[in-house]
């Protein structure tokens, strides 16, 4: 497979390895120390680290700056970019800025609605949507042009990804929607947290039937549950999240002080099962503010050591 960018994630995937990515959320502060520290905790166990972009619409240190901090530490960041807060001028500008700092992977997202965050009275932008952001990055990279048509002297060298949520409604368009993202230019996919493995496999069956797994690298999202309370909260309050009752029952059946350990085991078991699923190209581990557990999960799932390249 032809390698098109300098992205480490692309190199791992196209060399036939199961990729492992993770994510870190920037601080609500101008001090980058915490995110640098989190990055170092997991750097040897993952191929790249997604940096979230004002997730849940809560104002934080910007994704691009956090990516630059990690890059300067020799780590491999993936720039997450939402279309909620920036118009096409700002998005294209930030893409160039990221590329200028040697950031070569990005994830194109819509972004949570601002109602959920610290600025529910703010305006949203949504000049373009996440599919159109994929098209934009690919156009900039492959055609060497801005959306306005002018040439880019040195185009951004970006490996481009998108999110997918197999558990959102309506289910019947979830495979067509993936096809649409691929048509828009997605080269890798990181999914919503997978807890309902049966439903994920059903979605993957539809993906494989259409041959979409040969056009895009699909990395299921894995988030360990820290407690039964977290599982219940996610089942109840997070839109588009599918947490089966059996998982809640299993955590409930474990003493409180053992629940986080059980959560890790459940996550590891999910990876062990899904790595056998045709079309799964790796995993995206989102251990929300629990980064110290990522190395253990990666090792137990059999993904350590990570591949090395010259």
């Amino acid at each position: 497979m032809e390698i098109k960018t300098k992205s480490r994630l692309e190199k791992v995937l196209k060399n036939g390895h199961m990729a492992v990515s993770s994510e870190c959320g920037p601080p609500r502060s101008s001090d980058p120390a915490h995110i640098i520290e989190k990055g170092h905790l997991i750097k040897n166990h993952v191929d790249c680290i997604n940096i979230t972009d004002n997730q849940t619409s809560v104002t934080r240190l910007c994704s691009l700056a956090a990516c630059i901090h990690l890059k300067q530490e020799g780590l491999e960041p993936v720039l997450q970019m939402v279309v909620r807060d920036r118009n096409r001028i700002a998005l294209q500008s930030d893409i160039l800025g990221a590329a200028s700092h040697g950031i070569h992977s990005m994830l194109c997202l819509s972004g949570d609605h601002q109602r959920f965050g610290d600025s529910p009275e703010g305006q949203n932008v949504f000049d373009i949507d996440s599919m159109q952001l994929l098209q934009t990055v690919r156009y900039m990279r492959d055609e060497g042009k801005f959306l306005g048509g002018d040439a880019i002297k040195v185009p951004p060298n970006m490996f481009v990804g998108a999110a997918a949520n197999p558990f959102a409604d309506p289910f019947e368009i979830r495979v067509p929607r993936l096809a649409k993202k691929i048509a828009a230019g997605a080269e890798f996919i990181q999914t919503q947290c997978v807890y309902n493995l049966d439903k994920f496999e059903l979605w993957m069956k539809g993906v494989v039937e259409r041959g979409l797994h040969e056009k895009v690298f699909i990395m299921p999202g894995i988030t360990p549950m820290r407690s039964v309370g977290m599982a219940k909260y996610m089942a109840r309050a997070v839109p588009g999240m599918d947490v089966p009752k059996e998982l809640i029952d299993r955590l409930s059946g474990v003493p409180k002080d053992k629940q986080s350990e059980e959560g890790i085991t459940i996550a590891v078991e999910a990876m062990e099962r899904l790595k056998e699923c045709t079309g799964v190209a790796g995993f995206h581990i989102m251990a929300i503010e629990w980064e110290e557990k990522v190395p253990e999960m990666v090792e137990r799932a059999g993904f350590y050591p990570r591949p090395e390249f010259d």
Partner: protein
Amino acid sequence: MIVGEQKPFDEVWEMVKSHKQLTVFGCNTCVAVCHQGGNKEAEILASLLKMRATKEGVDIEIVDGGIERQCEHPFFESAKELLEDTEAVLSLACGIGVQFMAQKYKKTPIYPALNTTFLGDVQEDGYFTEKCQACGDCVLGVTGGVCPVTRCCKRLFNGPCGGSSDGKCEISKDIDCAWQLVIDRLKAMGKLDDYEKLTPIKDWSKDRAGGPRSFKLEGF
């Protein structure tokens, strides 16, 4: 039609209480349909203001009136004297009517009694819903007659997002997911395959982004 809602009464009172004379003026078309700004509502609001003035011992002469539409010159003929002689107007029109009067009566303070809320329909008596944002470049032909600009909270042209759940939007269980509606319509019309067509990036210069819009018919 244009839908509006009366401002909180205290806010209205604060705007007008310093005047000695005031005309409370209804607009009897769109905002009368939603029972917020018609001539009847102007009469009621005038009465409430008179009571408040009495209660607070404020000396202010309040009269009411109204016309069919505050956004076209010919309708103002019937209220010419009333408006030319008044010190201030509390208009129950939408923002268009308020501005039209402000332009017409250059020295008269014109206050809005309503918040202009949206362009919408009458789903049932007393229930109005937003349907159009006048973006200037209608896409309803490819979205099954459901407007993503107005009805998707993220105005996605290639939705739905990952927050669509049981036909509802991630921001509220009271809001339908616009893209669920688009998909239902495409399916009902036997056009679900059209879902995979990518909608191109929108030209927002025809929206408010391009500045205030106008259009002039030739030959008038």
